[in-house]
């Protein structure tokens, strides 16, 4: 019993990370209609920023997170403004080619700078200890991840539902021309939103080092599963991505636990089945 609960908790924690990775892609796809297969590169960027600061400069763990968030967000926003926005109007094939190229290049750069090996991250003592919740021992880090995910989800939903920024984004998703006609600076909105998505991915990446590990194959390794979260949750839907991420995280963990021989690729079978029956995702493509 304790075993299963522990696996489920692991799955939920994994799902939270997936949520953080995917939310940027979901919003980008919904808002800019841009298929960014390189989104995982932002998560990787955040991870390497965190690792460099901690291992190279002894920055404390909790400080790493906002720094990774901001640094990746800035990087994303700049990349968007300089290069990526020119790819938005291009047909699907070009977007796919561009983003695959970006993913390869990003992984290669990481490989050149940091080498192909896994990056170590020493979690602070207070996170590494096991905590007893309802009689079951869970690593503090899992709880931290789950907490971080919930906070992020809440913050994003609040942001998109209650702020002026969120209203503008939803307007621009609905009809770009009308939004521009109302005086909304849509291109600034796109940069901000892209940067925000990148920032969350970077945060996820920083958090993931101590749970999933970090190496240059990161962007492509998690590509399918991140796309799954977006496709199943419905592009543009935050709540949908959240539910889809948890769902996929838990299923993946359960299968790996119960049927380890095939566990790894059951998730792809799940993908195929879901796409056959729900081609538009669970949320049906509405925005958050």
């Amino acid at each position, binding site marked *: 019993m304790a075993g299963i609960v522990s696996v489920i908790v692991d799955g939920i924690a994994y799902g939270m990370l997936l949520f953080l990775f995917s939310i940027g892609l979901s919003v980008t*796809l919904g808002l800019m209609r841009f*298929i960014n297969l390189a989104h995982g590169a932002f998560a990787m960027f955040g991870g390497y920023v965190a690792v460099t600061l901690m291992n190279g400069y002894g920055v404390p763990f909790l400080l790493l997170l906002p720094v990774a968030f901001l640094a990746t967000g800035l990087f994303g926003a700049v990349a968007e403004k300089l*290069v990526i926005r*020119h*790819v938005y109007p*291009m047909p*699907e*094939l*070009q*977007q*796919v*080619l*561009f983003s*695959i*190229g*970006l*993913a*390869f*290049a*990003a*992984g*290669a*750069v990481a*490989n*050149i700078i940091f080498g192909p090996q896994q990056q170590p991250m020493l979690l602070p003592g207070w996170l590494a200890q096991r905590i007893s919740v309802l009689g079951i021992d869970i690593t503090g880090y899992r709880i931290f991840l789950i907490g971080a995910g919930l906070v992020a989800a809440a913050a994003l939903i609040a942001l998109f539902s209650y702020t002026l920024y969120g209203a503008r984004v939803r307007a621009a998703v609905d009809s770009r021309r009308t939004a521009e006609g109302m005086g909304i600076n849509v291109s600034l909105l796109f940069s901000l939103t892209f940067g925000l998505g990148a920032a969350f991915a970077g945060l996820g990446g920083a958090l993931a080092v101590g749970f999933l590990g970090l190496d240059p194959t990161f962007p*492509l390794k998690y*590509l*399918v599963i991140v*796309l*799954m979260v977006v*496709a199943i949750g419905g*592009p543009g839907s935050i709540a949908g991505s959240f539910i889809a991420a948890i769902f996929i995280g838990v299923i993946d963990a359960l299968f790996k636990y119960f049927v380890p*021989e*095939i566990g*790894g*690729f059951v998730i*792809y*079978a799940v*993908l*195929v089945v879901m*796409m*056959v029956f729900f*081609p538009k995702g669970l949320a049906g493509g509405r925005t958050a």
Partner: protein
Amino acid sequence: MNSVTSSVTSSVMRIGIGLPLFLVAVASYFLFPGQLGLIAHLFILAIFALSYDLLQGHAGVVSLGHAVFFGIGAYTTAILGRHGVSDPLVVLVLAFLVSGAVAGLLTRIVVVGNDLTRLLVTLGIGFLFFEAANKANWLTGGADGMPDFEVGRLFGLYAFDFMGKTAFWYTLAVLAVVYLFLLLVTSSPFGVALRGIRENVRRMHAIGAPVNRHLAVTYIMSGAIAGIAGALLAQTSRFASLDMLGFERSAEVMMMATLGGTGSIPGVVLGAATFGYLKDMLSVISPKYWHLGIGIVLMLSVFVLRSGIAGALAGLARRMERRA
């Protein structure tokens, strides 16, 4: 350019572009006797890229998991070889059939849905087969791959020799057949229908076209031909490995087709040959910088030289025509 009325002339013209390519290929046998293995490899890549471009360039369907069929062709060859079936042509036909059959099973999920769904499904299928092959190491040898399976003599006479002579003519012959076949298909009513799907799928529905059926046939054809390419690689290198199924290979075939000029049959051949050659030269020096290089080239390719090599050459030809 492909007007139906002058299409006999234009077919000859299209073969016409292929003819010099063919002659260059034949000449390379005599010009580079020490590189026959590499050249045969380039022919194989060309077949693979042509199979993919039928989907992407002609029907307008992007698939991120096309290497699945390449790998199935290779593994079919290896498994048959281990079980005593080793006549190269028999194995080639069987690989063609097996890959085509798998493609047939998958059409229902690939053809359905919108573009994002299809990207995701083809990506997922790619990873699924990769992981499955990885885990099923009793059949596939897992991460170690399958070396040392029997490959018989071609026509019972010609062994696949070290110098690669047999491999060269064998793969060139298959490439020529595939090339001509695709020329025929793209000049047929079916080919016009594919271009119609690529140009305006809405209109296709409105003229009563069975779009899904057309796409399914295309998917099966392209999967089967990719299987031939994979079988050829396994036969000439006597090895089948997981990377033949992997995402990187799927991405590479997309790059080859696009860099050569998606939609242009000779262009794709040139693109595959160029890509294969560069990869052979550069990735040995440093795989990291090779990945960085192709990443950058891919990103640039959406801004400059959109129509690939074929487009650049056609543009040059037009400019020269205007001066004349």
